[in-house]
């Protein structure tokens, strides 16, 4: 890998995280009032003042920002006002749930979406392809939360097949609580992953189709056919490989959407992940949690972008060798 290219990407990532840290901190400044958030409505004014002072809220903001960054660099994001626990602990505890959910949904959506898109592109003119595409449009158009609750209604309440909430039994692998190794954990994952994946499946399918159509028009596809390469190989090796690049990019962006919509899905399925935590924090003005979440997301996306760029370079020899 070209070191300049790599270094530049890392530089961008750091810049992104820095800017988000500023925004996140500033957000903490204006959103809500931590003292009220902690003490509630019925605390006397003196108690409020004391707490304000104790928390250092009377310092000027650059001082607090520096302190914040200093702490953040050490992985410290303070205490959650509400949960009264170190934010870092909460986040570490909740990452596995969200990651497992998002990754399952991502895999599900790619696994279904890519073949769908390929098929729809190959048989572009057939009515099946248009039915597929129309179906996927409906998929995109269904609000995630409605899908979620409908699934619960059918599969939990009516059929009693799947649990309606939570993560089921989890097993610890080191600090990571996974639900993927137990039957109940897997059962609990099915519906949230599906409702999160549904709109993404459609997105992926549509993207793959569009890219695929474009690639199928290329000369090298025609030439591959002219060389007698079988259609299946042409479609799934030659065409798909070239379609991969935009898919990689989109998967990266998609993780963004997945995390964002995980907020909704987690809310519906009471999934103990970052989304429920963030939403609760938002409704409770739990600023340290909000800030830490934002920083985490920024790091996550900076990381994802970095990985996407690297994957891109791996998948496309032209980028790999080009100057950064």
């Amino acid at each position: 890998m070209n070191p300049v290219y790599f270094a530049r990407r890392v530089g961008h990532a750091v810049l992104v995280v820095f800017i988000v840290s500023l925004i996140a901190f500033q957000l903490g400044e204006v959103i809500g009032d931590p003292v009220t958030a902690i003490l509630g409505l019925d605390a006397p004014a003196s108690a409020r003042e004391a707490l304000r002072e104790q928390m250092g809220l009377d310092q000027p903001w650059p001082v607090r920002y520096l302190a914040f960054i200093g702490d953040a660099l050490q992985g410290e994001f303070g205490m959650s006002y509400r949960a009264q626990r170190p934010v870092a602990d909460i986040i570490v505890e909740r990452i596995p749930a969200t990651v497992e959910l998002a990754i399952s949904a991502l895999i599900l959506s790619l696994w279904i979406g890519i073949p769908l898109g390929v098929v729809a592109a190959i048989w572009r003119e057939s009515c099946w392809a248009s039915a597929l595409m129309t179906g996927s449009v409906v998929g995109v158009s269904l609000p995630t939360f409605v899908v979620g609750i409908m699934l619960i209604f059918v599969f939990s309440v009516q059929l009693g097949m799947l649990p309606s909430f939570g993560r089921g039994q989890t097993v610890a692998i080191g600090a990571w609580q996974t639900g993927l190794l137990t039957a109940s954990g897997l059962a609990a994952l099915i519906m949230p992953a599906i409702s999160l994946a549904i709109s993404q499946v459609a997105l992926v399918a549509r993207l793959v189709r569009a890219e695929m159509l474009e690639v199928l028009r290329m000369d090298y596809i025609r030439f591959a056919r002219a060389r007698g390469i079988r259609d299946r190989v042409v479609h799934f090796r030659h065409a798909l490989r070239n379609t991969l690049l935009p898919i990689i990019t989109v998967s990266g962006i998609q993780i963004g959407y997945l995390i964002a919509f995980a907020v909704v899905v987690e809310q519906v399925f009471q999934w103990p992940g970052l989304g429920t935590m963030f939403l609760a924090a938002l409704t409770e003005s739990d600023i340290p949690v909000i800030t830490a979440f934002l920083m985490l997301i920024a790091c996550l996306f900076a990381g994802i972008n970095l990985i996407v760029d690297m994957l891109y370079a791996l998948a496309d020899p032209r980028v790999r060798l080009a100057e950064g």
Partner: protein
Amino acid sequence: MSSMTGMRDHVTAMATQPAVLGAAAILLALVVVAAAAPWFAPSDPSDLASLDLFDSHLPPSWLNGGDARYLLGTDSQGADLLSLLMYGLRTSLTVGLLAVALSVTIGLLLGLIAGYARGWADTLIMRAADIQFTFPAMLLALLIGGLARSMLPVNQQEEAAFFIVVLALGISHWPHFARLVRAAVISEAGKNYVMASRLSGRGHAGILFRHIMPNSLNPVFVLATMDIAFAIMTEATLSFLGFGMPASQPSLGTLIRVGYGYLFSGEWWIVAFPSLVLVTLVVSVNVVGDWLRDRLDPKLR
């Protein structure tokens, strides 16, 4: 391509695809309904004096216990659901359109600058777009919503909600357009007719706005269509999370949020109809957008 013949071409081409034609007709109907809501709706849900609490929770008129005055039933306040839907559709569409208009405006402007000026302006704008890109639109919208609300005086938030949502959605999506426009501008700017225009003495602004911009608009147009659907959906999701439109100025999303609680209660109409309308709206926008893309996107032709 002439815009007139172009338009006619599109219409005749559309006529051959019944699904698209259907979607376009539905979309048109929905837009008309939304635009005409103040005249066509049986009642004005914002006219609070007309509400009667004792008419609340009525089922659609064709069901047992329904009331002929309320075709699709009433909500928890006794407001006519049909009217709410019409006004909600209006709000959703307005939010969607304005949000997209905002992101198109920002994206177009920055994309034009980045693609035409290149150099540091390009780097700066695209880097900003990258940074913005790393943030999922919805989280960004949540944040902007949170920020704006906390900065506004309490009693202005109600009126401001609409603009906050539009702003949040608009701001969160400009990078898509900026990237698209930039790519189109770079490709157009390299074309010979731009060179020829420079030789004819036209200045940069003239070239940018008379030549390059009109020729870069097609993909923007396509994406904008799709984005309206996305904006409407995101607004609905935001509303669901309680950060969207207030219940006093309901969008379809707000109606679904309010109705969401009634999913199991047997008062299904409160959530079913708004969901249906939302899905219909988004589906038809998407179908038409897909079709437009297949037609307009030169890469796909």
